[in-house]
């Protein structure tokens, strides 16, 4: 006798998403539900509303459940408007490494939306944000990655930011980057790590071109 059964009735839905109307106001209210499941579904369903970024960003600031925060980041990535992008970028300034790293992963996945704000991020006054931006470039599908990295090593005064950019250029740089790399070596002639990594990058570029 087999003990396999088939579902006799739809699974019971409890403590979650069906308690309020699924319109914008209902879903926005649901973001304050005491149940994380209900909040996650509200976050997902809000993607259908173009004006949703503001309420999602507001919720992100106070949300304590990691799974709901994850859902908010994904929904913001799908919305991709200015408010959503500002919300994601704000996470780069968070003291919480898990939120920051998750935001970096999400931003890497949306090159069309991230592309237009990269220059601003690379000129941010906070050097950590500039480094995290280079972390985003590390696998951003965008044709300007090399140019952005070149602009970093041409202009940034912070040695750690430049070092991060050189490390990535050693993997993805072409002949185009050679002059900028040599200039950087001169600019930071007293920084042994920069000199070492520039030499390594130049060697790798040279090897790769042949």
């Amino acid at each position, binding site marked *: 006798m087999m003990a396999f*059964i088939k*579902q006799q009735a739809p699974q019971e839905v409890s403590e979650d998403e069906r308690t309020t109307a699924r319109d914008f106001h209902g879903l926005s209210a649901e973001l304050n539900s005491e149940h994380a*499941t209900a909040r996650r579904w509200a976050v997902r369903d809000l993607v259908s509303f173009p004006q949703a970024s503001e309420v999602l960003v507001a919720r992100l600031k106070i949300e304590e459940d*990691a*799974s709901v925060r*994850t859902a908010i980041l994904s929904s913001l990535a799908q919305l991709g408007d200015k408010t959503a992008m500002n919300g994601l970028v704000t996470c780069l300034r968070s003291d919480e490494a898990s939120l920051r790293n998750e935001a970096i992963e999400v931003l890497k*996945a949306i090159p069309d939306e991230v592309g237009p704000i990269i220059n601003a991020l690379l000129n941010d006054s906070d050097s950590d944000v500039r480094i995290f931006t280079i972390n985003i470039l590390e696998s951003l599908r965008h*044709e300007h990655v090399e140019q952005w990295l070149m602009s970093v090593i041409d202009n940034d005064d912070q040695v750690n930011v430049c070092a991060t950019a050189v490390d990535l250029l050693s993997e*993805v740089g072409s002949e185009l980057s050679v002059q900028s790399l040599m200039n950087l070596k001169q600019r930071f002639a007293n920084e042994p790590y920069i000199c070492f990594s520039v030499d390594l990058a130049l060697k790798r570029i040279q090897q790769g071109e042949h």
Partner: protein
Amino acid sequence: MTSITISEEDFSKFKEFFYRKTGMQFENSKRYFVDKRLIERIEATNSGSFRSYFVMLRFETTGEELQKLVNLMTVNETYFFREEYQFKCLVDSILPEIVRKKTDDSPIRIWSVPSSSGEEAYSIAIYLLEHWSGIDRWDVEIISSDIDTEIISQAKKGHYSPRSVQNLPDKILHKYFTYKNEGYQICRDLQQAVEFTRVNIMEPLEVRSYRNMDVIFCRNLLIYFDDVSRRYAAEMFFDAMKAGGFVCLGHSESMSRISSLFRVCKFPEAIVYQKPLESR
């Protein structure tokens, strides 16, 4: 004859990149397999060298080339008892753990997605009957879903080519199948054991009724998704599962590269991913 070569360093770089993007990992023993396909794509795209190709692969805006490479690197073929170690893990580790924590007599729910032509879902049913004593004590629901209605019809019919069943021991083959029309027809009891449904796992409205799953098998599907979709699918699974439930991915896939929602569980037979018990 091609003059393009893949150096040790190229292979390491590629391996790391490909893992990051798809969660797929290649052992060094797969070197020949990977090199051959890489060279094929380097030539097809007129890239000239590994480095040029690799840069293009990393930064092309459409992601098309990566998808082509993924298709080449995966063997999209399904058959009975494929990656059998995960079924062993199901009966020897996962189900005992689930049963130990169960507080009621509700059925154990297993979701196999995508169903493809049904081999995985039927393999699960056979494995439970053959190797899990708990089947006498617990009711089990096996639900198997796919986006493709034609493949679901095929799964429901349960008629398979000799190639599909070639991994099955003779004893199992004779017990659950009959030879018919140059293939093997699965028995009626097993056909009735699995509920096949159509679902697009990227569509919230469709997935919403899939819930309280104890185990989800989702093998070799997410590798075909882009990063955002992969995250989204992982989040959908999270809500489709009971707290403490398990997700089994393909042997070359890794949830850790997709989402931080799940806990890695290293069982003796396989690595699987658990929705934390404390999840809400």
